[in-house]
């Protein structure tokens, strides 16, 4: 095909992708002159080009569209929905014709005449057009100079640079072995730096703005709304986030599917929304942001959310879940059932979302590229899905392990935790030849890597277990002889004869220059014929001696500059918020994140700069913790030196030769824990009313010690286990069976028989409360 014509097709396609969003935005705001101009420029350019290439149909369509738009520009016509639809239809047809041109199938036989007529019939100027002409004009993004490159050229560059990196590693090893040599090593450092920069630059050439994905959404949502009769306000944020071109293609389908689902099943029809006290127009927010080496894409709607109970009912009905297991599921695990195959809660299958492709496929697709899907549902209020994907496919974070004297790599994205067998946290049992391991009450199938690869060594002798949660959802434990290291590996596809083994996902070269096989977790499970336990992600992560097991931690720098470790399991997500989101309200700092208001920790004052937040959760309560930066993700079993007193830091540990504080989540959450819901379960403590010290200062302490505070007149006061009174007051009669704790204001006791406690003696108070709680 003619080189010029190819160029025209590519250019038109690119413009078409960009213009879809502009048209929908223009429809919403017909007075937006900048958008109108952009659309006009598009049809004008197409008209010019099609004349040049002698493409009469495209020329006629673009000519008619140009005329109609010119009339709007001059104010002769209003941008009514009919006109917008006609312009859209014409642009769609142009797209189809361009597509046909590319595939060589020029004889697309549809008649363009009705489209041209729809554009033509002008009903005269409308007052709306004149009025809207003064509407504010949003800024246009400045255009960046670009060139077009064939993709395989970029691929070749990337693979060249990858090789360069490996050669550098080999050279580094050679230099190390040769011993110190001043001149060479300075030179080598410079070369090494250059290669690092080059790799960054080339990686970036493969990056595309995620706009590529998002630009299609306004049009899609508009069309879906038209089909379903729903009203939806779509907001898109973070379109300038960049990620690997290949990744963009890989998440296109999952994203489309999630958005369709949100429109079709999530957001209710206007009548239902009105009945439910919500605004008629639903809202759908798509947001991308970068967090370290990952891109997070949130898709949040304010629809009906996912009904966990209905999912459980469906799962029971289809037999994917046993009643006994169902009873043990946490709410989060129930919601996570949407990722099970064949469990759709949609009452009827609609033309939009169709049947067959479900959330299970979405998750499998995302996990295939080393990503994760999180789901967060608020029944009746909406659903938020978060896709976490790595920035690029070629360099993946991996864990190297040893088995039968050989090294293997495991993709870190599939690893849930690493457990040392010796610590006693894991118990291995044999059940009819099969092996299971019990970890903190959770029973998992056990696969022995040394046995699987034909070496010696039974699972019972393994040093470490790596708990894997591969694509497909099932969790299992892999016994290995040794856990070596975390490494960023340049992974290449393995030869077909190697892939045929069904155990590997690729090959790489380790730091010592030897080839290393990257293990494929689903393949391992298949090979060992285990049926992985299909349980959710949320398991208890406390109750085990920290020294016995390795845990993943986020190493952060706090706003005050302290290095602090936060357990990854407590971090629900990472968000960036503008400074305005933080306010001093209700006596403390709160931050608005999306729909919710969270208490803000780690930030002493209202900030004057945007904040990066860790959203921490204990399953019930959520708090936001501000950090200056996230330095790293580390796996370790910290040796903690306890802190001097209670506070944000539990203690100090050593990491990378420096000190880092370990966050005291218990202390943090104790300040915010919601205990109202389960009030009846807590022991009761009676506090006198009307005393400001008791009400405001003592009460939180008593509550954080696990008591429910009531006043003496309360019906529950009779059940009180402890009654606190001032030293001078009389004990209330209700507290017959309870123990009395007297608090005095004076520091010194009045004589030997005074058993009262000074009211600011925290330790004595807590001791008294603790004794009571046990008794």
């Amino acid at each position: 095909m003619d080189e010029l014509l190819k160029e025209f097709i590519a250019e038109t396609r690119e413009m078409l992708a960009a213009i879809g969003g502009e048209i929908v935005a223009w429809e919403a705001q017909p007075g937006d002159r900048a958008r109108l101009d952009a659309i006009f420029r598009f049809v004008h350019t197409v008209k010019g080009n099609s004349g040049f290439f002698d493409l009469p149909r495209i020329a006629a369509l673009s000519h008619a569209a140009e005329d109609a738009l010119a009339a709007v520009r001059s104010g002769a016509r209003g941008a009514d929905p009919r006109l917008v639809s006609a312009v859209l239809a014409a642009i769609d047809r142009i797209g189809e014709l361009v597509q046909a041109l590319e595939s060589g199938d020029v004889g697309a036989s549809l008649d363009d005449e009705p489209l041209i007529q729809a554009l033509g019939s002008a009903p005269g100027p409308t007052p709306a057009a004149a009025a809207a002409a003064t509407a504010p004009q949003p800024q246009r993004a400045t255009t960046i100079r670009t060139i077009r490159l064939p993709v395989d050229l970029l691929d070749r560059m990337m693979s060249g640079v990858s090789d360069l990196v490996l050669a550098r590693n080999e050279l580094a090893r050679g230099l190390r072995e040769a011993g110190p040599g001043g001149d060479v090593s300075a030179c080598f450092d410079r070369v090494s730096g250059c290669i690092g920069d080059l790799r960054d630059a080339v990686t970036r050439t493969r990056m595309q703005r995620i706009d590529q994905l998002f630009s299609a959404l306004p049009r899609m949502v508009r069309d879906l709304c038209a089909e379903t009769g729903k009203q939806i306000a779509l907001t898109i944020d973070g379109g300038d986030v960049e990620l690997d071109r290949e990744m963009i293609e890989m998440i296109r389908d999952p994203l489309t599917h999630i958005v369709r689902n949100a429109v079709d099943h999530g957001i209710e029809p206007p009548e239902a929304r009105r009945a439910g006290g919500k605004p008629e127009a639903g809202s759908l927010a798509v947001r991308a942001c970068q967090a370290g080496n990952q891109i997070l894409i949130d898709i949040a709607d304010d629809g009906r959310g996912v009904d966990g109970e209905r999912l459980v009912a469906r799962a029971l009905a289809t037999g994917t879940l046993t009643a006994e297991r169902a009873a043990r599921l946490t709410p989060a695990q129930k919601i996570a059932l949407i990722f099970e195959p064949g469990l759709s809660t949609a009452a009827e299958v609609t033309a939009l979302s169709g049947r067959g492709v479900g959330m299970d496929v979405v998750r499998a697709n995302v996990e295939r590229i080393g990503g994760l899907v999180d789901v967060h549902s608020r029944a009746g209020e909406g659903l938020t899905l978060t896709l976490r994907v790595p920035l690029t496919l070629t360099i993946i974070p991996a864990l190297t392990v040893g088995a039968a004297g050989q090294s293997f790599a495991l993709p870190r994205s599939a690893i849930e935790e690493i457990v040392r067998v010796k610590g006693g946290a894991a118990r291995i049992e044999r059940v009819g030849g099969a092996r299971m391991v019990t970890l903190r009450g959770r029973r998992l199938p056990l696969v022995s890597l040394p046995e699987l690869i034909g070496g010696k060594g039974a699972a019972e002798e393994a040093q470490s277990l790596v708990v894997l949660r591969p694509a497909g959802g099932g969790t299992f434990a892999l016994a290995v002889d040794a856990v070596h290291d975390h490494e960023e590996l340049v992974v290449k596809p393995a030869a077909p004869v190697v892939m045929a083994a069904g155990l590997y996902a690729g090959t790489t070269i380790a730091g010592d220059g030897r080839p290393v096989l990257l293990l494929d977790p689903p393949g391992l499970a298949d090979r060992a014929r285990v049926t992985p336990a299909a349980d959710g992600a949320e398991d208890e992560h406390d109750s085990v001696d920290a020294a016995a097991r390795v845990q993943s931690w986020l190493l952060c720098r706090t706003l005050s500059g302290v290095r602090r470790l936060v357990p990854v399991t407590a971090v629900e997500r990472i968000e960036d918020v503008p400074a305005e989101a933080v306010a001093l309200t209700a006596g403390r700092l709160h931050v608005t994140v999306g729909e919710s208001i969270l208490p803000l920790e780690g930030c002493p004052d209202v900030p004057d700069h945007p904040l990066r937040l860790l959203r921490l959760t204990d399953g019930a309560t959520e708090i936001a913790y501000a950090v200056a930066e996230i330095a790293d993700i580390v796996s370790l079993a910290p040796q903690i030196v306890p802190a001097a007193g209670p506070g944000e830091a539990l203690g100090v540990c050593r990491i990378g030769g420096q000190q880092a504080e370990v966050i005291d989540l218990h202390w943090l959450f104790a300040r915010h824990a919601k205990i109202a819901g389960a009030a009846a379960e807590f022991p009761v403590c009676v506090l006198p009313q009307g005393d400001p010290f008791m009400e405001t200062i003592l009460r939180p302490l008593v509550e954080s010690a696990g008591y429910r505070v009531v006043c003496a007149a309360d019906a529950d006061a009779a059940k009180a286990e402890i009654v606190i009174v001032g030293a001078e007051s009389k004990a209330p009669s209700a507290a017959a069976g309870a123990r009395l704790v007297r608090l005095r204001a004076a520091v010194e006791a009045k004589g030997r028989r005074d058993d009262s406690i000074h009211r600011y003696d925290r330790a004595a108070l807590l001791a008294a409360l603790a004794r009571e709680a046990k008794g």
Partner: protein
Amino acid sequence: MNRLLLIVTIAGERVALPASAIEAVVEIESLTPVPGAAPHVAGLSALRSRVVTVIDSHASLGLSRFGPARDAVLAVVDGHPYALLVDAVEDVVEAAAEPQPLRAAASPGWARVARSAVEAEGDLLLLLDVPAMIAGPAAQASA
């Protein structure tokens, strides 16, 4: 047509490889086994920062596995580099004529990897099919 042939010895037999299919003659220093793979996959080796899949040509012929062979020829098939272990590498020669279909019945192992013979320096040599050597005995049906 490129008539250059590389003469190697495999399992005591002098055979020819099309020189155009061979990138280099290399020495394999160390092997990383690939557990679970077919027997003719000897392992992986790193050559010039590339991971090369090493093929045991004896096993590929259905014979017992190689001893400690070191010499190999490097070939790239479908973008993947392979090293084919050989007993010895002799020389590069020019073919005297076009390859001829093999009329006589070779043993089953050889018949799978060599469908023709070629004359060079007065001898008639089997012309090996490199992709068939790499695919191994199990993939015979699809070859």
